């Protein structure tokens, strides 16, 4: 276990995020700091897989009306520890790609680095509208059995979620 033995709360934070228009497609670059709580670490080391979700929302800005949710994208990653190989697996649940890491640090580092992720085709957006885009990372507990979720619901250690990080979509 690379991380501290003392109890810690853990936090998710979007350090930076931006989009680029490359070849008519908006791609996302982001750096996210993922610090797991002691409780989550214990669960991970006991073989409980953690699901980390990146939520991306594209919002059309409207002048005289409520803003409109134009698109939503959820990127889910599964982090798992295998005791025999003593390695951490990071699995992209959207694409099915997976990678293994010798340390949790490198696994989380890998997870927290998003580069050139295609978000949306510019052609799908309205030409004369402006869009806001926002991103957050959160620990998803939906896949656990009900008794656990009932418990996680009440525990702060399991309520890991970053603030929304918001910026204007450059076109």
């Amino acid at each position: 276990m690379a991380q501290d033995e003392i109890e810690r709360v853990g936090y998710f934070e979007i350090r930076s995020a931006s989009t680029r228009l490359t070849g008519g497609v908006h791609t996302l670059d982001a750096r996210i700091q993922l610090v797991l709580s002691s409780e989550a670490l214990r669960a991970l080391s006991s073989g409980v897989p953690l699901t980390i979700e990146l939520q991306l929302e594209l919002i059309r800005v409207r002048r005289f009306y409520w803003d409109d949710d134009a698109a939503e994208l959820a990127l889910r990653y599964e982090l798992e520890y295998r005791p025999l190989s003593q390695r951490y697996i990071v699995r992209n649940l959207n694409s099915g790609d997976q990678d293994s890491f010798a340390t949790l640090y490198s696994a989380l580092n890998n997870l927290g680095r998003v580069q050139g992720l295609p978000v949306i085709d510019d052609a799908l957006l309205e030409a004369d509208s402006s869009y806001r885009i926002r991103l957050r990372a959160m620990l998803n507990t939906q896949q656990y059995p009900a008794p656990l979720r009932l418990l996680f619901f009440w525990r702060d250690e399991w309520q890991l979620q970053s603030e929304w990080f918001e910026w204007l979509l450059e076109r």
Partner: protein
Amino acid sequence: MVARAIKRASYTIFAATGVGLVLVALFLLSRTAQNSADFDRLHNVILAINIAGVLVLFAFLVGNLSRLLREYRTHVPGAKLKARIVGMFVGLAVLPLLVVFYFSIQFINRGIDTWFNVEVEEGLENALRLSRAALEMQMRQHLSSTQQISQRLGDVNERQLIFELSMMRRESGAAEITIYGSNNRILATSSDSSSAGLPRPLAEEVLLQMQQNRPYVALDPESYEIRTAVLFSYRGRAEPSGVLQAHFPVTERLARMANSVDTSYTEYQQLVFLRGPLKSTFTLTLTVVLMLSLLSAIYGAFVLSRRLVAPIQDLVAGTRAVAEGDFDTRLPTPTRDEIGFLISSFNDMTQRLATARREASLSQALVEAERTNLEVILARLSTGVLALESDLRIRTANQASGAILGVDLENRAEEFLPDVAKGQPLLEQFVDVAQVHLSAGETEWREQIVLRGEVGRRVLSCACTTLPGDEKHAAGYVIVFDDITALLQAQRDAAWGEVARRLAHEIKNPLTPIQLSAERLRRKYLDSMSEEDAQILDRATHTIVQQVEAMKDMVNAFSDYARAPDIEIGVFDMDKLVHEVVDLYRAQESGIEIVLTSDPTMPMIEADIGRVRQILHNLIRNATEALENTNDGRIDVHVCAAEFEGVDVVQIKVGDNGPGFREGSLNQVFDPYVTTKPKGTGLGLAIVKKLVEEHVGSIRADNNTDGGAVISIRLPIHEAAREAVIARSPGRADKRRERA
């Protein structure tokens, strides 16, 4: 009543909703525990429902409890019973629930703990270590073989590299061997048929390891493939020219076993990790269920107790109402059980009581009516009726009794009769006689009582009877009495009138022949007789004639008494009349002084002037006759107007200084043939009394303190005064009616 029922119904519906919510929540909880997909969606709803249910129930409990406390403190009937029932039910519900809860918790904890076994854990740990050791051995072997391949390939000519690589790969049993140049460029690669596509670029951690000039060996966590990487350099060159990475597959059997160990260990660890949360979750769920059940049970206890106690409270309220006299209370009969029977019995009872009371009040009204009737009759009765308690307190007296005895007895109920009688001469005498009888223990007596009052004698016919009481004491007495003065007088008058008429008739007839015979004897024999005999005859016949004359006068007087010509009322001046009469007697010069005091301003009187003159004549003559043997005789005549007992009267007093009435005969002076005089028929005063009574006047005879008699007469001055006197005395009215 209706509003209360609606309120109660809404409470029940509200509470039922609470219980229903709780049940739904529990059901959803059990469902979502199995079906995890719905959990997040439903979790908040379930939670809200649970909380709402608990809150509703709790609010109800608090409300019910405070109400019960309030009722208990204010001693509302049934509150104690309700409290006891609630306590009992709560006790019955809580104890088993707590026992079940305790054992369930124990069971869950033990059950979960039994999944975990130290030996199993150790075994799994060892299996993992063993597998790891086995794989690590292979990893070391593969690493050394990789290093050998790298060294051998360093000697190989660059052109033969791919060929040599393939050969060595086959020799070493690797699945893939790739040589990467700088910038992760692939220099050469060889793979068996199992791996498809281009080899992936070097991983970061491999590069990191290579930079530190250390060999890299790792186990793929999924396929248990062993990856090795070492630096590769051509012989003779100081700088490494690339990295050699090889993938060695493990045997399928080994991979399967490794996977099995890996999975089992992971699952066991997961269970160990889950143990705590599972326990807490189950405990939490059980506690929630327990709380809900407990609250529901307590609420149920309240509802049940209210149901049970309500009819009893109704009964208590009904009983109180009956105690306060409201017999129209009807209680609703809710059930057909024993309490229902009790309530219907209560209703029967109140109905019967109400009927009985109605009947009682009806008969009371009847009695009251009878009593009123009796009172009216008693009031109209001319007979006096006086009811006394055994201790001589007045119970009731009618109006006539008061009129006869001269005291208003009607309104003196409850007073002691002798006290009432003090200062009332008539009543005093009456009470004296009654007390003599009653103190002698006579229960039934009858007596004629003569009372002396200011207005003369009163004769009462009196009868007493005892009211039935208990054995020792009489409940009281009823004395019935009649004023029979007038009746007696009338009887006596009638008798004397008859006597007088007969006497006059029988005596008058022979008198004339006697007188005539005597005169004839005298005429025939007087001259022929000797002088001596003639003298005798003369005296004898003279005496006979004289006596016959006297007898004639007497007989005439009798016939006057008997005859009663109709009264003729006229208006005249009393003063003038009295002067006329007195002057007549003064003119006779009988040697008697007549002193007249008369008020000349006296009003005119309404009466029969002939009768009043006769009264005056009779009185003065009576006095004159009484004074015949008296020297210096003197008659006082006094006439004046006055008011007596609220009635305007003319008062006539004729007194003399003669011998007076004989003591003891005062009561009978007005009876015929009662006289103290040597002369006189004894009819004078009797006639006077009769005339006075014809004018509704009163008369009394007394002796003066200094000798002599005095007769006092009061005549009502006019018709209105006479009516007033008649109205006051029932006896007189009768008499007057008779006369009319």
